[in-house]
């Protein structure tokens, strides 16, 4: 990922525009034939995708079992609600922490690996977590999942805001998304993010510049897993339940597809684009055919073959191509006018 | 009294073919002694067994009969890991070290010396253009001065190869027809019929002119 404009800013113009547009979504989403809950889902998966892309796009570390941390966060949210205290803040903190601890544990074992070996290890660990979730009936409810997770109210001491309507939840999740985006934007363009990017480009060189590469790989994996867990916690709250299927290899594959289709390798916002395209495609194509995954799969193949930098990359490319042409044409026009 | 640096004691290697009736396809015999430090030039046709001889001396190829004593120790009875503290085989630009481990290392003896005393150079690449020849020859002499035994094996296909052999070789070893034959000097080597056959008419004439 190249350093984009406004990298030094905490909040960029693009962020403001995006935030404003997203804030209007509940006003029109039903009119275009979609439904408010889809907005909630898109935002939650966007947090997850941005967290995942910190690992894949910035640090270049392929994690193909990332669903595990998302799922662990979902279970942590539910279990804390049932067994500790039904506090939104506590449950979300638990989701973040559980994802982070699971991530740190795995990172301990894989951070000295590279490339395909790294990827294999992430799959193996992801499968272990998924298997444990399915088999531990007593804790996770096995394949039946954890049901009756409540949408807890936002308790601000004096006031308490109820989130049981999809619109209220949407605005809460939007806030979380904006905070996560601002935080990740800053992290990506901080010295830490620069070192991660350096490690992606050449691990050897980074080590010879004095950077303890394993420690960085450990840190970024833990951060990414923690944020994924956080997104998982929101997801449990949104769908009032937690199931093991989001931890499966399958779902772990979806997040990879979303990020790559969207253009996570070249753009910070690429993963968000990918999530929108994926979920909207699921609903729109899914309305016509049950085999919508086939069509999305074909789209994925087409992107990998023809635009490996993803939708965001393609847009960036067109933009760059467009620019000089417009300039040239403008010059020709002014010549014509003058001459 | 210090033992001789290298003794090849009725050394024999036979390769055979056939599962039941074994017909020898290759034999090599050597019964030689190199008591002290010197530089030995090794020559002989392809397939005559120079590499086999080097492998037996460095302990990586077990002889059919006889023994190889390096500094008094039978190198084939020294721990695999420590054989390079006795002898080193350099193939072109790197060292070769591969042992077929038949006996557990624990049952084998330790090397009597900490550093190798035998250096065998198998066809080092000499190129007149880059100047390394000079450094290589100086290195052979340095090893010799440190009391080591140096074998340099090369095929003289150009005049300067013969110049090199004459310049550094104190004695020679002709590996030919299944035997390793010692030659005390360059001129003694040049008059040997087998050596002349191996060198071919052009190189023989050049060698004679040098001797």
């Amino acid at each position, binding site marked *: *990922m*190249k*350093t984009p404009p406004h*990298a*030094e*800013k*905490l909040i960029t113009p693009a962020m403001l525009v995006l935030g404003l547009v997203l804030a209007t979504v509940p006003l029109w989403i039903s009119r275009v034939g979609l439904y408010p809950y889809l907005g909630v889902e898109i935002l939650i998966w966007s947090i997850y995708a941005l967290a995942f892309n910190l690992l894949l796009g910035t640090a270049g570390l392929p994690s193909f079992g990332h669903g595990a941390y998302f799922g662990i966060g979902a279970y942590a949210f539910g279990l804390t609600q049932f067994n500790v205290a039904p506090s939104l803040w506590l449950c979300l903190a638990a989701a973040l922490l559980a994802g982070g601890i699971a991530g740190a544990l795995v990172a301990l074992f894989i951070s000295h690996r590279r490339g395909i070996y790294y990827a294999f290890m992430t799959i193996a660990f992801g499968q272990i977590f998924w298997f444990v979730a399915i088999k531990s009936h007593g804790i996770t409810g096995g394949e039946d999942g954890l049901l009756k997770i409540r949408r807890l109210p936002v308790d601000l001491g004096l006031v308490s805001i109820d989130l049981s309507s999809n619109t209220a939840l949407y605005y809460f999740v939007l806030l979380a998304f904006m905070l996560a985006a601002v935080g990740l934007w*800053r*992290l990506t*363009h*901080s*010295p*830490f*993010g*620069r*070192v991660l*990017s*350096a490690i992606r*480009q*050449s691990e*050897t*060189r980074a*080590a*010879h*510049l*004095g*950077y*303890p*590469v394993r420690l*960085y790989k450990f*840190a970024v994996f833990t951060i990414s897993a923690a944020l994924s867990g956080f997104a998982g916690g929101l997801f449990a709250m949104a769908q009032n339940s937690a199931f093991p299927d989001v931890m499966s290899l399958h779902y772990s594959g979806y997040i990879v597809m979303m990020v790559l289709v969207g253009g996570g390798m070249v753009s910070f916002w690429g993963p968000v684009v990918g999530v929108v395209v994926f979920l909207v495609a699921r609903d729109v194509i899914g309305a016509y055919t049950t085999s919508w995954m086939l069509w999305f799969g074909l789209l994925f193949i087409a992107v990998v073959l023809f635009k490996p930098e993803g939708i965001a990359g393609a847009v960036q490319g067109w933009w760059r191509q467009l620019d000089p042409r417009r300039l040239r044409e403008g010059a020709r026009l002014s010549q014509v006018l003058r001459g | 009294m210090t033992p001789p640096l290298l003794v090849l004691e009725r050394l024999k290697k036979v390769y055979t073919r056939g599962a039941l009736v074994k017909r020898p396809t290759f034999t090599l015999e050597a019964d030689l002694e190199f008591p002290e430090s010197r530089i030995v030039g090794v020559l002989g046709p392809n397939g005559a067994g120079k590499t086999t001889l080097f492998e037996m001396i460095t302990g990586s190829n077990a002889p059919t009969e006889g023994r190889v004593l390096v500094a008094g120790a039978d190198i084939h009875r020294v721990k695999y890991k420590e054989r*390079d503290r006795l002898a*080193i085989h*350099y193939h*072109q*630009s*790197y*060292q*070769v*070290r*591969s042992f077929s481990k038949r006996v557990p290392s624990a049952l084998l003896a330790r090397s009597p010396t900490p*550093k190798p005393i035998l250096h065998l*150079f198998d066809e080092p*690449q000499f190129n*007149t*253009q*880059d*100047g*390394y*020849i*000079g*450094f*290589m*020859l*100086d*290195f052979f002499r*340095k090893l010799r001065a440190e009391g080591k035994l140096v074998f340099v094996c090369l095929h003289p296909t150009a005049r300067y190869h013969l110049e090199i052999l004459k310049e550094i070789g104190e004695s020679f070893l002709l590996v030919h027809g299944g035997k390793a034959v010692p030659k005390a000097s360059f001129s003694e080597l040049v008059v040997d019929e087998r050596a002349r056959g191996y060198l071919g008419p052009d190189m023989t004439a050049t060698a004679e002119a040098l001797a």
Partner: protein
Amino acid sequence: MAVLEACDIHVRFGDRVVLEEISFAVEPGEMHGIMGPNGAGKTTFFNVLTGRVKPSRGEVRIEGEDVTGLPSHRIAARGIARSFQIMTLFDEFTALENVEVALPEFRARGFDGRRAAVGDRGFESAARAVLAEVGLAEKAGIVAKDLPYGDRRALEIAVALAQRPRVLCLDEPTSGLGSDGRARLAILIARLKGRLSIVTIEHDMEFLFGLADRISVVHWGQVIARGTPAELRQNAWVQRSNLGRLQ
């Protein structure tokens, strides 16, 4: 005392012994050249010096302190910088960003995720000074992969210099350069020499003999000759070769 020292280094990869008791010392401010035929073990030796390969026997010391077997980032942090024969720049970074990330002060803040790395004048002015030193001041904003080859080679050295090393290890810095590039590099190295110690692997004898204070000839994983350029040229066979004709 020698800045960087290696004693009786022994390395084997499987059946192959790559280094056999190499010993070597770099004095402060010295330029020490390493030459030798292909496959003689020069790059492996560099990898031992910079912590990429752990020797099976022997010791590496930085100013007398044993650092054998330390990982490469620890060796680098102690002031040993290296360039690579196959260039390993951060291709997506600009020249400036490549150099910034190599600065010790950047490294000290490597885990800082709260501030932006861009637009920080502290890094930027230091990095620009290093780029100016290798003649890339004008090209600071160009992405590394878009730079011409000669500039990429120069940037490779700038990245090593940015670490403010005590010893600069250069692995075939002239490889692939034309005569202009070589001349430019020679001027740079002549300027750096004395200020820091330099170890260079080099095939270009003209380049090496013109710049080095001492040269070690490596072959068969050992140092087969060592001396000043003048001493090495004494050899009769060397006189006959290309080397003998150099002025």
